[in-house]
């Protein structure tokens, strides 16, 4: 384990300048060479010379306000600030002279004349840049005394649950304001007033919680004093060591330093060297880690014969033996295919690999699937077909070279916030933005950001819009002929060209279907094709449709059509949702593919695994999750091992799922909480959070990053150990003593992973696959010289309207999405203070639709679809267009999935969550399902309460 003693990461003062011509200068008599554009301050730091400073920090542009970092430069008058002075060839700099010392002491005197002198009891004692700088400049007295006007009585703002703003300690360096602007892009903070009256203000002089602040913590990290400090630091003191690990929330996969006292995490700070996030984070990863030690954690195995009985806490041995025996009994009675597993997109690569190995080599079938089924399985199908690999093509950092960003069916500022901040930074630099979304997401109109085009597509018409864009590009001769001729399958392109040229794909012909004004669509197409480097970022608003796979292929077609593949600043970027959903797919969690996306029919690939595992493998595809549920209701599928997934909450048509789960003879749930699915379980195997295990996650950039154990697993085992025990009990031998051995096996068997090992990960920090002999350091950008499949393939993408349409009975279309503070089913975030922001799911409804129904803000609304109904509170909003309503699904009792149907993508069965025909009306009580569910929840909680689970000590 990489144990790092607690030390702040080195701060070089101003940002690094990559790629500039080398410039040599002299600093304190030593020659220093740095790229052009580097500040004198940073050049000194890189040479090991620390120039005292306060307002400068290397995550932010230089500001030059504190006047502490002054230097002397030959030939330059006065004492310039080294942070705002770029290096010049031959410059001669002195950083320490008597005159400079005097000036710096004078400046510090002024600061300290208006600062509390309670260092010894201050929460940042020993970790305060003001304290350090006072020491560095040799401050010995404050000649002004302390009786003058000051800000020592300024009130504290404790509104945010995670950090405190103590205005009495503020030195108005503006780092927080600049961090909120430059790093996060929210612009929630400002300096109000002038001169002595200047002070940091959130919003319009509001409390942080009432302002636009999104609690990303960038200001807290940037603050050089105790003004902005984490509450956990105030309560517990300074951490004593830190461990670099990877966030377990979304597919950005931010690198964090878990900062600890012993095995208690005091805070998570974003790791500057993390390539995905480069020192930034969001409210979830930064602050919402407390769920790992929440009192709801289940830490001892439990079993029960039926779901109406109380749980019985048992030993690991008994639980594993019981599970193994039940699964074998079921197979003996009902056939080899009567059991299966769902692997987790939040568990590590190594853990997922073992689950699919258990299924294939232990259960003897291929009934293994993962949550990617319900989110990005169309990405797998669509990108494999067109480009040859089921993954995004770029790094996140690539957006810094983008000239036109096309964001479709993705809401990055809510769902991939750290990437959203990168995108906003690039947009503020002048890149253009096209948003294709039924809803006016934040990116359409935010501080200093405005979409050049917002195509408010009707839910269900994505393929029509994409075809229309391609039609315009082709008929106006804007496609990149040379790229296509060289890189793509030309005969297929000719076939596709004939298809897309047809007038039925013109924006005018498709206007009724798309709901997008043709002129707007034409202009957007021209911008995408001719605006320079153009990159497409897309999410579940593309995939979770009956033509999700078709839409992904249409997106890949657009990128190939315009030559926007194979270099920085362009590409096709699926915004993978979960922390390890990419990894889960890579590791062979699909019923038709082995690890590395090799179809079961590939005899050579199958042979490799058969030889390694010592067992013949079933060559036929297994069941997808929806097939498992259909077969369960039919009585053919009877046993399920469900690791780290909450299908009862996250999958569509809840009543169908609940019926399927209730029909199982043996449902085994491995999780950290008693989730909705576990309420139907017969065996509960307590899981481990990301803080309690070693392994790797793979993010949306194909970046494999280390997960490092910082505390002992509360249940006594890491998740992979539980799967190993179950495998051994079922006669499928596994004898790993550390996850690195599992990764070594994966690397042996998977060409795209040949070069991956824990040693290499320690060396490089993270690795983007493919990593092998051809790419020993990994692959940031894919398809550089040729596509993985050789020539790019233009798939035909005929628009087929979904069967789910607004009609007289259900005249509105419901679409769904996510919010920043809660994460997916909310199992983690609802058990943290994040519920302060989003305590319930709300239905957004346009003012026209609301008025027609007599709905006012906050009214209870019954939402009815052809499969079910639920009740949510109303928010009147123009973010949605008339005819469209929107909600999130973070709270189980919202029942958002009681309404969603079993319509799904034709190729992958990814559910069509984004299009459900509904009617909405005012009601006065919860729905029948909600009332039943509350009773069911209460009953299951009672059955758990008798199980004698140990009480969790909350630090």
């Amino acid at each position, binding site marked *: 384990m990489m144990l790092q003693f607690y030390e702040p990461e080195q701060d070089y003062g101003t940002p690094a300048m990559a790629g500039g011509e080398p410039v040599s200068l002299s600093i304190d008599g030593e020659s220093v060479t740095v790229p052009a554009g580097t500040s004198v301050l940073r050049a000194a730091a890189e040479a090991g010379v620390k120039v005292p400073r306060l307002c400068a920090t290397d995550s932010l542009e230089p500001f030059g306000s504190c006047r502490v970092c002054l230097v002397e430069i030959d030939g330059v008058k006065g004492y310039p600030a080294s942070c705002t002075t770029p290096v010049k060839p031959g410059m001669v700099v002195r950083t320490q002279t008597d005159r400079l010392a005097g000036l710096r002491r004078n400046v510090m005197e002024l600061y300290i004349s208006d600062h509390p002198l309670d260092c010894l009891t201050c929460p940042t004692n020993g970790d305060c840049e003001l304290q350090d700088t006072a020491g560095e400049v040799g401050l010995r007295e404050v000649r002004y005394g302390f009786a003058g006007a000051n800000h020592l009585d300024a009130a504290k703002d404790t509104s945010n649950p995670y950090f405190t703003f103590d205005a009495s300690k503020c030195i108005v360096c503006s780092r927080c304001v600049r961090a909120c602007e430059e790093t996060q892009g929210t612009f929630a903070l400002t300096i109000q007033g002038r001169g002595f009256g200047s002070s940091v203000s959130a919003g319009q002089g509001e409390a942080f919680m009432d302002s636009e602040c999104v609690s990303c913590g960038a200001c807290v990290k940037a603050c050089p004093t105790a003004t902005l400090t984490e509450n956990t630091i105030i309560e517990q003191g300074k951490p004593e060591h830190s461990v670099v690990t990877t966030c377990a929330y979304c597919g950005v996969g931010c690198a964090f330093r878990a900062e600890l006292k012993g095995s208690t995490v005091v805070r998570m700070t974003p790791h500057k060297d993390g390539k995905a996030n480069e020192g930034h984070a969001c409210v979830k990863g930064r602050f919402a880690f407390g769920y790992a030690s929440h009192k709801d954690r289940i830490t001892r195995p439990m079993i029960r014969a039926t779901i109406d009985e109380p749980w019985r806490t048992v030993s690991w041995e008994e639980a594993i033996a019981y599970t193994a025996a039940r699964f074998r009994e079921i197979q003996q009675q009902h056939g080899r295919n009567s059991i299966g597993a769902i692997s987790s997109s939040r568990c590590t690569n190594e853990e997922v690999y073992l689950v699919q190995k258990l299924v294939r080599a232990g259960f003897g079938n291929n009934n293994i699937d993962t949550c990617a089924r319900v989110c990005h399985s169309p990405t797998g199908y669509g990108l494999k077909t067109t480009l040859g690999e089921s993954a995004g093509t770029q790094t996140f950092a690539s957006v810094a070279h983008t000239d036109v960003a096309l964001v479709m069916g993705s809401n990055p500022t809510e769902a991939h916030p750290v990437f959203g901040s990168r995108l906003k930074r690039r947009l503020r630099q002048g890149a253009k933005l096209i948003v294709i979304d039924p809803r006016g997401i934040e990116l359409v109109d935010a501080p200093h950001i405005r979409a050049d085009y917002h195509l408010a597509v009707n839910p269900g018409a994505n393929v029509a819009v994409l075809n229309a864009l391609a039609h315009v590009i082709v008929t106006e001769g804007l496609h990149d002929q040379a790229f296509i001729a060289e890189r793509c399958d030309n005969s297929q392109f000719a076939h596709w060209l004939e298809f897309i040229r047809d007038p039925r794909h013109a924006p005018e012909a498709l206007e009724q279907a798309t709901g997008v004004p043709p002129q707007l669509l034409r202009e957007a197409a021209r911008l995408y094709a001719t605006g320079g480097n153009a990159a497409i970022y897309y999410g579940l608003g593309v995939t979770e449709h009956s033509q999700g*796979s078709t839409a992904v292929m249409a997106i890949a077609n657009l990128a190939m059509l315009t030559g926007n593949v194979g270099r920085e600043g362009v590409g096709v970027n699926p915004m993978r949702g979960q922390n390890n959903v990419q990894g889960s797919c890579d590791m062979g969690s699909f019923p038709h593919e082995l690890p590395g996306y090799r*179809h079961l029919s590939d005899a050579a690939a199958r042979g490799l695994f058969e030889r390694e595992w010592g067992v013949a493998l079933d060559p036929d595809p297994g069941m997808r999750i929806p*097939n498992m549920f*259909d077969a369960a*209701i039919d009585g053919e599928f009877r046993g399920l091992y469900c690791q780290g997934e909450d299908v009862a909450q996250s999958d569509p048509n809840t009543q169908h799922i609940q019926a399927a789960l209730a029909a199982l003879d043996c449902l085994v749930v491995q999780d950290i909480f008693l989730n909705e699915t576990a309420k139907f379980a017969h065996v509960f195997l307590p899981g481990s959070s990301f803080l309690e295990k070693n392994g790797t996650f793979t993010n949306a950039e194909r970046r494999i990053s280390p997960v490092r154990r910082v505390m002992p697993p509360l249940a006594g085992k890491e998740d992979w150990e539980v799967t190993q025990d179950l495998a051994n009990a079922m006669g499928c031998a596994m004898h790993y003593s550390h996850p690195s051995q599992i990764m070594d096996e994966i690397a042996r068997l998977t060409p795209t992973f040949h070069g991956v090992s824990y040693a290499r990960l320690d060396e490089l920090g993270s690795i983007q696959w493919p990593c092998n002999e051809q790419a020993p350091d990994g692959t940031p950008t894919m398809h550089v010289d040729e596509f993985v499949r050789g020539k790019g393939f233009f798939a035909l993408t*005929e628009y087929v309207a979904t069967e789910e349409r607004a009609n007289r009975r259900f005249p509105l279309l419901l679409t769904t999405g996510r919010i920043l503070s809660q994460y997916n089913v909310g199992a983690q975030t609802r058990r943290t203070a994040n519920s302060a922001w989003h305590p319930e799911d709300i239905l957004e409804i346009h003012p026209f639709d609301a008025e027609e129904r007599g709905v006012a803000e906050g009214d209870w609304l019954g939402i009815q679809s052809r499969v079910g109904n639920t009740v949510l509170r109303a928010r009147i909003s123009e973010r949605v267009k008339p005819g469209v309503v929107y909600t999130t699904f973070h709270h189980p009792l919202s029942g958002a999935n009681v309404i969603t149907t079993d319509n799904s993508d034709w*190729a992958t069965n990814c559910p069509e969550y984004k299009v459900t025909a509904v009617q909405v009306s005012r009601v006065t009580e919860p729905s029948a399902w909600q009332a039943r569910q509350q009773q069911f929840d209460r009953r299951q909680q009672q059955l758990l309460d008798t199980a004698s689970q140990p009480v969790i000590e909350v630090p």
Partner: protein
Amino acid sequence: MARGQIDQLLKMAGHIALNLGAGHDAAAADRTAEHISRFWTPAMTRQLIAYWRGGGEVPSVVAAALASLENSQPEKR
């Protein structure tokens, strides 16, 4: 087999055929058969073939695909 499950298989097969070019392309039946072979369990395919052979109504492209699958699939499990 439950009516509900057959309906589901029919719907899926029909959508596959539609999206892979039914009505536009003579090779649509082959592509539909290939897709089903790659992604469906043999049991699901057998169930749909049994339904069709038992006189159940299926779209013509799907029927052509099922005929081709019937010939290529060896007896399993």
